[in-house]
């Protein structure tokens, strides 16, 4: 069996088996589920490493043709998989991180009622994610794309007894689908323009030049709308904070490491297209910058530990899009790579804290937690995300900053700079509030199945940067060479780069110091104003609710009650009623009285007479 096929189907088979067991047997020992749940992703992770290894060292391209999905006229969609460098790079972290989070989840979900169901969904999610990454043509990619949205819906609403959670799931899927609307439209247009020449990625990129620039911009824009939805960028971001309603492993896997990065992957995948549309690319950069800044600002007044992390995810995704926008694709992907590890780690640590504290999530209630291992891991992850050398994100974020600087869009660079300072502020705010307190609370110990994956991720967060060591540190930018994307290289002199790094790091250190003064061992957090504009997230949710939701409801009522009921149905009924009334009038005339009948005859005869007279009057 083909490697890729096996890699893809592993999680699916696991999921199907779990579903069957749930369906057929009422009581099964939890270990059966655990075994099945880990089997599929385990195989996938192993094969992913294998594939990446060969891709990286041997430049091997794996591919697998499953079957012809659709063949009508020119519209040929092959269900085919292909692991070129980009895909291999993606699965390099998607599959192993998924596997690690699965292990973590076996500890986190231990003993919960819907243990099996959870892992069934989880495995289906991994399947769709792999399909999205490995697909060789955009339609199959779209299937994976929608599939991850769907499973994330199921997982966000996993604790369905609380209906708010399912609404959060609905919100996520609806906003994702707005993005999908753009994505699908873009694909259709793309097909109509060049689809007859083959609709896999290779042929598409080969034929791109045939499209005129206006249409190309439209397609690029619509594709990016899809990415906005999936990667929670302005204006389609509101689902991501709410999506934290799901179990923490879900947040770690879906809303940090994999699904939300799909948008970045997609833009990178369509790099040849975006290279032809500089306007849209810059637009992407702006959206990314605004999203990064917005999320960072909102996170400074957030108290829910998971929501802080959610906003930080959005912010980091903004950084990636900035890089994509200026054409530094591999830099963005590198940041995504690093992000997958440290963000998963952050979520897992947060989840461990939450689990240890009876599922409280407010950092003010979680203050003073005593968990040295968690503290160390979280501290390292926080240092990573704030881009302190020598952790991995330092290299990736620095690469982004210098790319932005080099691209000449100073305003974007400035926004990114502010956002990165704010990142330091809110992340350390969280850490200081959680751990740096006078009174201490003891917590339950986290299980081994939770700690070990986190340990692995901690190591990866620290050392992942080595993979794309920049040139100034005598690195070789291995990822860039491996991926070989058509980049617009913005090179800055080494001196400038070093100055940038230094200034950046200094400012960040300053911010950390300020944060320490403000939050560590103080109760500043208790005094913060919860009614400010920032704490209310700039009223974006309320605005959407008022404009979109209310409008739709009003329209719905208007259509249903006014137009359908009053206007159309009532007029149809009125027609029937009018017949009834007219019938009544005639029935009244037919009163059984012969002399009335005579009257009608008379009227008829007289009218006939008059008519005939005037008709024939001249003749007679």
């Amino acid at each position, binding site marked *: 069996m083909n490697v890729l096929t096996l890699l893809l189907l592993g999680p699916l088979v696991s999921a199907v088996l779990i579903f069957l067991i749930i369906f057929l047997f009422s009581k099964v020992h939890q270990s059966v589920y655990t075994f099945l749940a880990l089997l599929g992703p385990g195989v996938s992770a192993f094969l992913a490493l294998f594939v990446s290894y060969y891709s990286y060292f041997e430049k091997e391209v794996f591919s697998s043709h499953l079957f012809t999905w659709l063949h009508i006229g020119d519209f040929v969609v092959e269900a085919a998989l292909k692991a070129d460098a980009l895909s291999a790079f993606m699965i390099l972290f998607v599959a192993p991180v998924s596997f690690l989070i699965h292990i973590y989840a076996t500890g986190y979900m231990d003993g919960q009622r819907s243990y099996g169901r959870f892992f069934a969904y989880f495995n289906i999610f991994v399947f769709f994610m792999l399909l999205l990454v490995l697909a060789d043509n955009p339609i199959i990619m779209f299937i994976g794309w929608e599939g991850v949205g769907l499973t994330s819906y199921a997982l966000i609403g996993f604790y369905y007894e609380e209906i708010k959670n399912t609404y959060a799931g609905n919100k996520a899927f609806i906003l994702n689908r707005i993005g999908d609307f753009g994505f699908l439209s873009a694909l259709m247009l793309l097909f109509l323009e060049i689809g007859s020449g083959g609709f896999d990625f290779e042929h598409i990129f080969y034929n791109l030049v045939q499209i005129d620039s206006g249409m190309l911009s439209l397609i690029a824009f619509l594709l990016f709308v899809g990415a906005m939805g999936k990667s929670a960028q302005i204006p389609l971001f509101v689902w991501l904070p709410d999506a934290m309603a799901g179990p923490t492993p879900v947040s770690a896997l879906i809303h940090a490491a994999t699904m939300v990065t799909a948008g970045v992957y997609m833009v990178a995948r369509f790099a040849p297209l975006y290279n032809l549309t500089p306007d849209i690319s810059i637009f992407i950069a702006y959206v990314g910058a605004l999203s990064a800044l917005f999320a960072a600002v909102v996170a400074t007044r957030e108290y829910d530990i998971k929501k802080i992390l959610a906003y930080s995810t959005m912010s980091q995704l903004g950084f990636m899009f900035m890089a994509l926008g200026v054409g530094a694709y591999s830099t963005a992907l590198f940041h995504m790579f690093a992000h997958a590890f440290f963000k998963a780690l952050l979520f897992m640590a947060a989840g461990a804290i939450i689990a240890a504290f009876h599922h409280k999530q407010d950092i003010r209630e979680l203050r003073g937690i005593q968990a040295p291992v968690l503290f160390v891991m979280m501290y390292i992850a926080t240092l990573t995300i704030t881009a302190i050398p020598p952790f991995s994100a330092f290299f990736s974020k620095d690469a982004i900053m210098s790319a932005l600087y080099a691209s000449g869009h100073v305003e974007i660079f400035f926004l990114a700079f502010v956002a990165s300072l704010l990142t330091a502020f809110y992340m350390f705010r969280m850490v200081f509030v959680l751990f740096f307190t006078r009174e201490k609370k003891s917590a339950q110990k986290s299980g081994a199945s939770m700690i070990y994956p986190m340990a692995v991720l901690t190591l990866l967060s620290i050392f992942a940067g080595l993979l794309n060591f920049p040139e100034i540190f005598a690195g070789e930018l291995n990822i860039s060479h491996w991926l070989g994307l058509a980049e617009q290289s913005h090179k800055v002199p080494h001196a400038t780069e070093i100055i940038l790094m230094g200034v950046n790091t200094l400012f960040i250190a300053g911010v950390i110091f300020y944060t320490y003064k403000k939050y560590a061992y103080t109760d500043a957090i208790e005094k913060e104003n919860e009614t400010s504009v920032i704490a209310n997230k700039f009223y974006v949710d309320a605005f959407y609710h008022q404009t979109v939701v209310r409008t739709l409801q009003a329209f719905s009522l208007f259509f249903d009650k006014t137009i359908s009921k009053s206007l159309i149905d009532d007029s149809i009924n009125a027609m029937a009623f009018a017949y009834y009334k007219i019938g009544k009038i005639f029935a009244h005339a037919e009163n059984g009285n012969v002399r009335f009948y005579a*009257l009608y005859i*008379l*009227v008829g*005869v*007289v009218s006939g*007479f*008059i008519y005939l*007279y005037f008709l024939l009057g001249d003749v*007679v």
Partner: protein
Amino acid sequence: MQNEIVFATLAIITIVSAIIMISAHRPIDSALSFIVTLISVAALFGLMNATFLFVVQIIIYAGAILSLILFIIMFLNIKDENLPDEKYKNRWLLATSLILTPFCAILINLILRSDIALEGATAKNFGTIQDVGLTLFSKWVLPFELVSILLLVALIGAVMLSKRGE
């Protein structure tokens, strides 16, 4: 000239009495004025030399049928409360007359415009019993016999109807 004057008088009497007949409230008044109408129609027959019909009209109509009506009216002992309450009688009469006016007008107009008056010579024995009798028993024997059957049937029917009511 003399004929014209007589005709005009009779015509006016006929019309007036007919109008009284249809507009009188009580049936007895109607019946009495109807007798006047019938007799003047009979007189008009006479004016046209249809002497036999003149006689028949007076005997059968004015004599037999009208007396039958009067007899019934008295027999039934009709009181005012038995009469229909014709509140809108006059309006009805007016409305129907209005409806009929064009009908009349058109017919009269057509007659005036037509050339039907042949003014042919009237035979000497026109309208006499002999004349009518000859025609009746030569050309019209079969209808005549049928009428007799009809009369018989009507007789039996009348008897049966009255009987069933009891």
